[in-house]
C-alpha cells in the first residue's frame, strides 16, 4: 500500500487529507476539484474502508523515508515516476456503483448459477445483503434461468477475453458449489504480489467487467448490475438546464440556492459532464475584476477547460 500511495502523489501536489477523502470518496466540491485538477478522478472511492489512522501511519512512513516531501502549502508531492509494472487502468469511481457492491452481486450471481448447475437447491448466499439477494434472484428468474448455458457462455467469454492477470484474480475470488474462494494471501503468493496489490487487481478487473457488461458485451448479464451513475449530480444537472435560458442570479433565485452554489454546479458540470464548458453571456456574470470571487470562479472554469482539452480527464 505505501508504494501505491507513493505513486499516487508522484508528480502531483495534494494535501494528504484531501487524498484520503478522494480515496474514501467523500464528495465535496473541493475534494472533487482537487481530484480533477490532479487527474485523480479514476481513483475516486477506490478504498472506502481505508481507516484514517492506517492511512496517516503510511503517510508518516513515506515522509519519514523522504519518499514524499511537504510543500509550504501543506501539500505532499514526490518527483514524477514511471508507473510500476501493474497499475489500475479501468477504475472509474465516480461513474460506477461501489466496487464492493458489484463484487457482491457478481459473486452471488455466479454462486447461484454454479449451485444450480450442480443441482444444489439449498445453499447459504455468500452475501448477507438482502437487497443484493433480491436483485440477483430477480435477475436469475428474468434473464438467466431460461437460458443457463447461454448465460454461462457469455460469462466465460467475458472473462477469457480479459488479460490473464485480471481474469485469474477475478475467477479465483468467485465461489460456487464445491468451489472455494482463494484468499488474498494465496493469490499474492501465486502472483508474486503483495495482498494489497491483488486487491487492486481485483477491483480493476471488476471495473473492466462492469464496463464490458454495461457496454453491451453480455446481454444476459446487463440487467444484473446497477446502471452507471451520472457523475454530475441531479442538482447540478437541473442548474445547467436552467442556465441555458437564464442568468446565474435568476437560477439561484428560482432554485432558492446561493449564487456561489450555482457557480459550483457549473464547475461540477464542467469537470464531470460530457462537454467542455466555457462562460456564457447569458449567465450575466459581473465583468472581470468587478468581483474577486467571480474572478476566482472564472479562473477555475478556465483551468478545467484547459485540463479537459489537454485530454487529461475522461469520464463519460
Amino acid at each position, binding site marked *: 500500500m505505501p508504494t501505491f500511495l507513493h505513486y499516487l502523489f508522484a508528480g502531483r501536489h495534494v494535501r494528504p487529507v484531501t487524498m484520503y477523502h478522494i480515496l474514501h470518496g467523500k464528495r465535496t466540491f473541493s475534494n472533487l476539484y482537487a481530484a480533477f485538477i490532479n487527474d485523480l478522478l479514476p481513483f475516486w472511492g477506490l478504498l472506502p474502508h481505508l481507516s484514517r489512522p492506517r492511512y496517516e501511519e503510511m503517510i508518516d512512513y513515506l515522509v519519514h523515508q523522504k519518499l514524499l516531501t511537504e510543500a509550504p502549502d501543506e501539500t505532499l508531492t514526490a518527483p514524477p515516476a514511471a508507473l510500476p509494472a501493474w497499475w489500475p487502468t479501468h477504475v472509474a469511481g465516480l461513474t460506477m456503483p461501489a466496487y464492493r457492491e458489484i463484487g457482491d452481486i457478481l459473486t452471488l450471481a455466479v454462486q447461484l448459477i454454479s449451485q444450480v448447475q450442480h443441482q444444489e437447491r439449498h445453499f447459504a448466499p455468500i452475501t448477507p445483503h438482502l437487497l443484493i439477494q433480491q436483485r440477483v434472484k430477480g435477475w436469475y428468474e428474468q434473464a438467466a434461468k431460461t437460458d443457463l448455458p447461454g448465460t454461462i457462455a457469455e460469462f466465460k467469454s467475458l472473462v477469457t477475453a480479459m488479460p490473464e492477470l485480471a481474469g485469474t484474480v477475478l475467477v479465483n475470488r468467485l465461489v460456487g458449489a464445491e468451489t472455494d474462494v*482463494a484468499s488474498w494471501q494465496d*493469490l499474492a503468493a501465486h502472483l508474486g504480489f503483495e495482498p494489497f496489490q491483488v486487491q487492486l487487481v481485483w477491483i480493476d478487473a471488476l471495473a473492466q467487467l462492469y464496463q464490458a457488461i454495461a457496454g453491451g458485451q453480455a446481454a444476459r448479464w446487463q440487467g444484473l448490475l446497477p446502471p452507471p451513475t451520472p457523475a454530475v449530480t441531479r442538482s447540478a444537472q437541473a442548474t445547467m438546464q436552467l442556465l441555458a435560458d437564464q442568468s446565474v442570479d435568476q437560477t439561484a433565485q428560482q432554485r432558492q440556492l446561493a449564487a456561489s452554489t450555482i457557480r459550483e454546479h457549473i464547475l461540477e458540470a464542467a469537470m464531470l459532464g460530457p462537454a467542455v464548458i466555457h462562460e456564457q453571456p447569458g449567465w450575466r456574470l459581473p465583468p472581470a475584476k468587478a468581483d474577486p470571487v467571480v474572478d476566482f470562479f472564472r479562473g477555475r472554469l478556465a483551468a478545467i477547460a484547459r485540463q479537459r482539452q489537454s485530454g487529461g480527464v475522461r469520464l463519460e
Partner: protein
Amino acid sequence: MSDDLHAALRQHFGFSEFRPGQEDVIRALLQGRNCLAVLPTGQGKSLTYQLPTLLTKQLTVVVSPLIALMIDQVKHLQEANLGAAVALNSELTWDEQQSVLNRLDKWRYLFAAPETLTRPDVVAALQHHGVGLLVVDEAHCISEWGPDFRPAFLQLGHVLQLLQPQRVLALTATASPRVRRDICRRLGLTAANTTVVSRSVDRPNIWLDTCPVTSEKEKDTLLPKLLAAIPGRVIIYFNRKQRANEVAIALTAQGIAVGRYHSGLERDERRSLQHQFREGYIRVVCATNAFGMGIDQPNVRAVIHMAPPTSLEDYLQAIGRAGRDGAPAAAITLLAPGDIPQLQQDAVRGFPPASLIRAYFHRPAQFAKDETPEIALLKRYRAFADASAVTQLLAATQQTRQTSAAQMVHFYTAPDTICRRQLVLNAFDPEPRQVHHTADCCAVTTPTALLQHLTTLAWPADAALRVHRPEPVQSVAVRLAQLF
C-alpha cells in the same frame, strides 16, 4: 409427544436419537415453560430452539453476542433448509434492516446482538409482530460474574418485559452456579416458570494434557511431532494472530495442509476455510479464539493450545470442539515459562482506573478521538450506565477476569497428583461427580511422555485424512470449468 418429537427429529434433522438434555429442553419449551439449558459444547444446543421453531411455526429471536456466530448460524439454517433466517446487524444496510422489520412474517429466525435488540424500532416491530421464542445464546455473557460479560446484555431483562415472548430459552455451555443464578435473575426466570436442564460439562472421551516446555522454540519443535502422532483434524489455538500466522507458514512449509483463521478474515474466506476443514482439504487450523463458535465438526481429534486461554470457560469451549463424535480425542496445552505471567498480566490489562472513568463521564466529548482500549471500553459502557454503575461493573468484571485467570493458572500449575478433570467438574457442575482418575483421564507430561501417550490412544480407524487439498489458485479455464 415423545413419538412426535422423535418423528420431527428424524424428518428435519435426520437423527434417530436426541443428545443428552436436548429432549428435556424441547419438551419444556413446547409445554410453554421457559428454560435455562446448560449443555456442554458439542451437545447440539442449537437444535433445542430449531426444533420447537419448526413445530410451532412462530418467530424465534436469537440474541447472539458475535456477528460471526450469527452468520454461521444463519448459514447453517439456510444450507439445512430449516426455515428462513436473517441476522439483523451492521452487515445489512439501514434499508435492508427496515425491510426485515417491516416483513417479520417472512422470517422464522431473527438473529440480533443485544445492542440491536434494544433499539426502539426493533422493539416496536417485534412487539407488533409477536415473538414465539426468545433465545439468549451464550447466556453467560449476561453475568458480570462471567469472564465474557457484555454490558449490553444487561438491557435484555427490560427488553423481555417489553416484548413479552411466549417463552425464553437461555443457552450456555459453561456457567458456574453463581452465573446461573445471575442469568435467571437478570432475565426474570423464576423457579415457577422455568425448567433448568443441566448436564455435566465432562467430556470423558477427551484426554486432558498439560505439557510444560522450556521455551516457545521447543513448542515449535514439538508441534510437528504432535501432528504426526495425531491422525485427523487438529485445531491449534494461539492468543496472538501474528504467532498463528508464523506457525501456519512453518507447518505449511513442512507439507501439512494448514488453514489460518482469525477475526481479520473476510466473509468468503471464512466460509472457504470452514468448508475446506469440513471436507478434509485442510487438516490443521491455526486459529485465534475467533475460530470455533458455530463449528460443528464431529471428528476433530485434538485441540492444542500454544498459549493458555484466559479462563477455564474459554478452555472448555475450545477443547469442546474435539471429539464430538464420541471417539478418543486429546486436549493438549504446551506451557512455556513465560505463559503464566503473561496470562496474569492479560487479566488486568485494558481496565481503566476509577479516576479515568470519572474524567471520561464528566467530559466524554474530550475523549471523542481517543482510541485507547480503556476509552473504547468506556464508550461501550456509557450507553448502558452512569459513572458510578460503570465503576462498580468494571470492578466486578476485573475481579472476575482475575479470578478466572487465577483458576486457569491453578489448573495448569496444581501438583501433578491433582486430577485436572476433577478441577473442571468442581468449577462448573453443581453436583460434581467424583472422577475415577486413570491414565486416560488427564496428565501433566513431558514432551516425550506426551508423544508416547498419543500412540496409546484408540484413534478411530478413519481418522487419517487422505484427501489432498486442491491448489488454492487455479487457471481461468480450470476455475470456470469447476464453477459451471
